[in-house]
């Protein structure tokens, strides 16, 4: 039996990656505002996702204001799809350990 991806399995990271899967790019404020996490918490989750290669972080300037954008990578998208497939498979296993699918 394969393990669920531990990086994605964490609830906040799962939600960050799912939101990013729906759009081309977002910034820190959008994720902060939508998820209601603290800045430090969000930063550490993004950091973990970036290190895993699931999220691309792009820093730029809008005039003098720093702007950080996040995008899901193809690797991140694939990992998310595999995670949901795996979770569905687990949900379909009955208490006797037999796969209902």
């Amino acid at each position, binding site marked *: 039996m394969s393990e669920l991806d531990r990086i994605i399995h964490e609830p906040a990271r799962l939600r960050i990656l799912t939101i990013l899967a729906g*759009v081309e790019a977002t910034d820190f404020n959008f994720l902060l505002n939508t998820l209601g996490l603290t800045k430090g918490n969000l930063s550490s989750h993004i950091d973990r996702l970036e290190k895993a290669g699931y999220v691309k972080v792009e820093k730029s300037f809008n005039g003098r204001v720093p702007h950080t954008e996040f995008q899901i990578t193809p690797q991140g998208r694939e990992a998310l799809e595999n995670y949901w497939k795996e979770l569905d498979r687990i949900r379909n296993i009955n208490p006797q350990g037999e796969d209902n699918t």
Partner: protein
Amino acid sequence: MQKKDNHIADPQEIIQWTRRYARSRTIYFLVQWCLIVFVICIIGLVASLTQQAYVAGNKALFYTSVVFLVIAFFFFMWISVSQWTAELVWQVTQWFYGKEGFVSPDEKKRSKTLPRWVIALIGLMLVYHILAALLISFRYLSLQYLQPFSAVALVPVLCILIYYQDLGFWAWLWPILYGLHAILLLYGFPISFPAPWHLLNIMIPIFGYGFIAILVGHIYSRYALWRLKSITRQGLEEYLDKEQCEGQKDTR
């Protein structure tokens, strides 16, 4: 295997509401539209001046107003391609949605300026409206048919703009209402302004229906954001509280 329930709603639902929210942030298009309407208003006023000059036989005023029509056209082309407009739209968008953060539904919507073929199409639409203004000036076209005449060009251009800029479902209200207004006028429904308010017959449908569609889109974006927040935060707050409590226990 650790089988922790993440209490996450259907992921497809989160993806869908994120997209719906991102696509219905229509205020930036309202800024673009205000600029377009501003030029159309100038053209309408100059056309009215041309007509008055023609009737009065005032050749100097007539040629001057024709020159102004051409200037208005070039002004329109400039505001369509200039960096100044792009910056203005960006600033207004930031002012409106800055607190909510940046979100881009796709690559094409992210580009600050419209592609040339779309600008050319809008230019052609404007030439078509100048032609209509001239036809009215020379009394070849009745002012009451200006809106249906305009709808023939404006409805397909709007459809292309909405499709290209991916403005979302509610933006389609705009060409639908504008087209419907034209059909009702042609069938003689009493929805036109009498003289001397004839010009409102074109100004109100052009601005009003656009404004309604953009506003409905904007209101929908509020709802989409609320839905997105509720489904993404579902179960997350409990988890974070639990995590925080465990963290505090560990530090004791």
